[in-house]
Structures are given as structure tokens and as C-alpha cells.
């Protein structure tokens, strides 16, 4: 900080030599003339002194029979003097400072915190409806009015606070999750259970709703299995009213699944040589600027990684900075016999079975057909699988009119 004030005031770096420079230094000290960075140099000393003090040392120089030589002129007064003719530069500097001041009078970013169920986009839409967006003058923002509006518009917001921090509008909210879950229940209240696969029903237990199919029925994907509409009949068996409920039950469907795989006897492998080079990329939208060119390889894989440069949290700037990795490889050929090829197919099939198992699908039966060709082996497996099925679908108007 001290050096900054020295720079503002302006100082000179001088060389002092002559009969008694030490006496000169002591005289300056006694007369409160500030001197710093005193370095011995040749026959005298070099030091810094303020410009204003330079005119006060004339008597001391005469008294001590010393002379002073200015080596460097440092500080803002000298800088301004040096560039005194560059009027446009100073005009631009002033304009820059003025525009910076002007931009601070507007809103340039938003920060939303505390939201759990309502997304940030919803809040941004609310602000847009209230005519608050990027570039809105800060003095136009009435925070207490905004808080009131937000609470009125969204009942489940129990507390909201708007705060203007510099050029950023900070919104902190507290939401009441209880009311939302209640509302969620109401929307899910009435629905059907439909089949997601085609097959034969082997087991069915209905808890709520009207079953439309039974055990042994053949269903196709999308068919309603349990309806969420419960008709109430009059004595003459005419429909009095229809109650809507959330259909519930357990359904097990047996279906057919086809698994097809093949393996070539000649397999090409990539063998990475370990040589790689990187290329830096600076991109704006779809335009790429290559900062660094990579080494050239005959065969290579490219792995790219880009990062968006964003100055603010909710301000999207389509500038990317990233790099591409060029990894060199050579092709190697492997020749498999029939057993090895089958073994590879078997490995892949076992992985497939594992994923089926994870999804809760049980394999009941499998028919395997192996077909050997000149350059490959093909395998076709017909699987009979058993799985619990049923997906919730909202009751459509067609179903209601049909009933």
C-alpha cells in the first residue's frame, strides 16, 4: 500500500556522490526528508526520494559538497506527463471507467438457493414475468414486492427473500414439501395397470381395480390388465356410477425373447503404442480454433474433452476450452478356432443373462441353434422368460367412454 501511495505521489531514483554523502543522509533525516532503498554505489549512494523533496535538498548538497544525478523518474505524475499528448487514450480510459460504472447499475446475474421441488427455471420464468431479466436496472427492483408476489403465486413457498448483492439478485426460498406430496398423491389417485411385454399370464393377484384378463390369457404390449375404474351396478344390472381408483396387483407374464450373436474367426485388435499428442481447442459455438497442432500418426483414436467457460452461474456463454488426445495404435489380427469363437459368444451370453437376472427376469427355457459359416459362427437362442409385469398408466378418456 505504501509503495502505491509513493507511486501516486511520484519519486525519483537518484545517485548521490561527493565529499560527504553520509552527512547528507543524516541531514535529510533530521529535516524529515524521506529517503528509501539506500544502496551503496561506486563513490556514493543510490536512493529513492520524492519529487517534492528534491527541491528542498539544494542547501544540503551545497553544505555537504555533494552532487545528485537523477537516474529514473517513477510514478504517476511522470507517466501522465509522458503520455500527455495521447488524448484519445485518456478519453478511452475515461470511457472505459464510465462504462464500467454504468454496467454496475444493472442486474447481470441470478443466484437461487433453498429450492428443492421447484426448479430454477420456474423461478427464472417467474422473474421474467415480473419483467426482471439480465440488464434490468437495479433501482427498478422492488424486493419486498417480489417476495409478496412469489409467495402469492406459489402457495407452498413458506418463506422467500430477494436481495441485491452488487449486480447479482440473490433469491433464497424455503418450500413446504408436505403440501406438494399431498398434491402428488391426488394426481396418482386413479390409474390402470398395463402390460409392457407380450406373452401369457401365468399368475395374477388383483388388490384394487377391475381385472380385465386372467391366468392363461394372451396379452400384447400396452393392453390393460387391471383397470382403475370400478363400476357400481343397480339392481337391474345397469351401471349406476363408476369409481376411479389406483389399480394395484401382481402379474407374472411368460414371454419369448430372442438372442442373436455372431463371432468372426478373424478378429482385428487395436494395440495402443503409447504414443499420444494433445491439441488445445478454443471454440465458440461451432467454430473451433486450434491452438496447438498434434503430431501426425497413421492410425489413431481421438478422445476429446471440452469445458464451457462460464463467467456466471446462470449465464451461458458458448465458449469452450478443451483438448483432443490423439492416441496412436496399430492393428493386430487374431485367428480363432471354432471352440474359441463359441467360448467368446458364451461369455457375452452369460453377461446378458446376468443383466436379465438383475432386472428380475427369470429364464425358464432356452433353445440354442449354432450355425457355422465360412468366416464366422452364428448363434440364435430362443429364450422363454418369466417376469413380473405391469406399468401404471393414467386412465384415458377412451377407456372411460368404453366402460
Amino acid at each position: 500500500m505504501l509503495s502505491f501511495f509513493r507511486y501516486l505521489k511520484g519519486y525519483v531514483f537518484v545517485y548521490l556522490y561527493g565529499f560527504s554523502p553520509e552527512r547528507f543522509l543524516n541531514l535529510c533525516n533530521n529535516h524529515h526528508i524521506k529517503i528509501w532503498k539506500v544502496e551503496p554505489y561506486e563513490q556514493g549512494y543510490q536512493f529513492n526520494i520524492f519529487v517534492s523533496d528534491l527541491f528542498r535538498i539544494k542547501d544540503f548538497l551545497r553544505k555537504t559538497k555533494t552532487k545528485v544525478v537523477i537516474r529514473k523518474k517513477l510514478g504517476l505524475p511522470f507517466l501522465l506527463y509522458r503520455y500527455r499528448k495521447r488524448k484519445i487514450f485518456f478519453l478511452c480510459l475515461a470511457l472505459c471507467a464510465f462504462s464500467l460504472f454504468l454496467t454496475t447499475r444493472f442486474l447481470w446475474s441470478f443466484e437461487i438457493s433453498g429450492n428443492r421441488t421447484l426448479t430454477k427455471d420456474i423461478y427464472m420464468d417467474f422473474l421474467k414475468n415480473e419483467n426482471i431479466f439480465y440488464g434490468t436496472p437495479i433501482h427498478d427492483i422492488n424486493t419486498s414486492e417480489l417476495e409478496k408476489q412469489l409467495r402469492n403465486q406459489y402457495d407452498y413457498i413458506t418463506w422467500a427473500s430477494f436481495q441485491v448483492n452488487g449486480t447479482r439478485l440473490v433469491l433464497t426460498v424455503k418450500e413446504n414439501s408436505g403440501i406438494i406430496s399431498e398434491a402428488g398423491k391426488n394426481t396418482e389417485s386413479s390409474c390402470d395397470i398395463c402390460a409392457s411385454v407380450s406373452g401369457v399370464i401365468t399368475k395374477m393377484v388383483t388388490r384394487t381395480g377391475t381385472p380385465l384378463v386372467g391366468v392363461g390369457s394372451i396379452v400384447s404390449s400396452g393392453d390393460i390388465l387391471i383397470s382403475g375404474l370400478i363400476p357400481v351396478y343397480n339392481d337391474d344390472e345397469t351401471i349406476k356410477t363408476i369409481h376411479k381408483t389406483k389399480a394395484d396387483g401382481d402379474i407374472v407374464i411368460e414371454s419369448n425373447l430372442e438372442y442373436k450373436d455372431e463371432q468372426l474367426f478373424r478378429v482385428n485388435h487395436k494395440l495402443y503404442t503409447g504414443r499420444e499428442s494433445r491439441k488445445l481447442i478454443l471454440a465458440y459455438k461451432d467454430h473451433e480454433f486450434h491452438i496447438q497442432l498434434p503430431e501426425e500418426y497413421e492410425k489413431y483414436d481421438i478422445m476429446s474433452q471440452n469445458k464451457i467457460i462460464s463467467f456466471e452461474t446462470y449465464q451461458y456463454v458458448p465458449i469452450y476450452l478443451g483438448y483432443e488426445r490423439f492416441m496412436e495404435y496399430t492393428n493386430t489380427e487374431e485367428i480363432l478356432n471354432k471352440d474359441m469363437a463359441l467360448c467368446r459368444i458364451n461369455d457375452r451370453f452369460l453377461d446378458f443373462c446376468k443383466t436379465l437376472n438383475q432386472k428380475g427376469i427369470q429364464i425358464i427355457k432356452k433353445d440354442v441353434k449354432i450355425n457355422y459359416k465360412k468366416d464366422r459362427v452364428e448363434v440364435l437362442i430362443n429364450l422363454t422368460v418369466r417376469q413380473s409385469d405391469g406399468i401404471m398408466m393414467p386412465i384415458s378418456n377412451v377407456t372411460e367412454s368404453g366402460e
Partner: protein
Amino acid sequence: MSRLFHNKINLIEKAKVQATDRLKIPRELVFGECILTLHGNHEVFIENYKGILECNDEFIWISAKELRICIEGRMLCVDYYNNDEMKVIGTINQISFMES
């Protein structure tokens, strides 16, 4: 006569020392003794000094009350100095005192 006067000064000095010790007043306030604060061997702060006697790359002579201080080292330089304090920077090898 001069012997008597000398004894009188000695007595005053003794009384001063005793009073300073009893009242626990810092000696630099009463006797104007200089204070040297050393930070490693790269900088030294000198308070209550009188003036610079000689300054060189390898040694700096400073006068204090009844003392002359010699700071020896390499690339020595006076960073700043004012009426109260002086800061010397560089590689300090030795500090010696000489009664003036």
C-alpha cells in the same frame, strides 16, 4: 573540585539505574539505548540511532548514544530510515559494538 563533580555525576547515574530497575521502566526510555531487532540474518531494525556514519555493500556503521554499531555482511542496503527507526536488509554475518 572536578573529582567532586565526577562523583556527583556517578551518584546521579547510579540513582537513575536503581530507579529504572525498581520502577521497571524500559532502559531505552531513560538512557536512550538503541534497540536492535533481528529477523533471521536477512533484516535488522535499529531504533534510537543517531545517524549513518558509513554505508557499504559489506558493512554499515551507525552511530547511537555512546555506541557505534557495525553491521557486517553481504549485499547490505538501507531499505528505509527515519528519525525513529532504520531497516537494513541483506545477508548479515556479524553485528559488533564499539564504545565511542
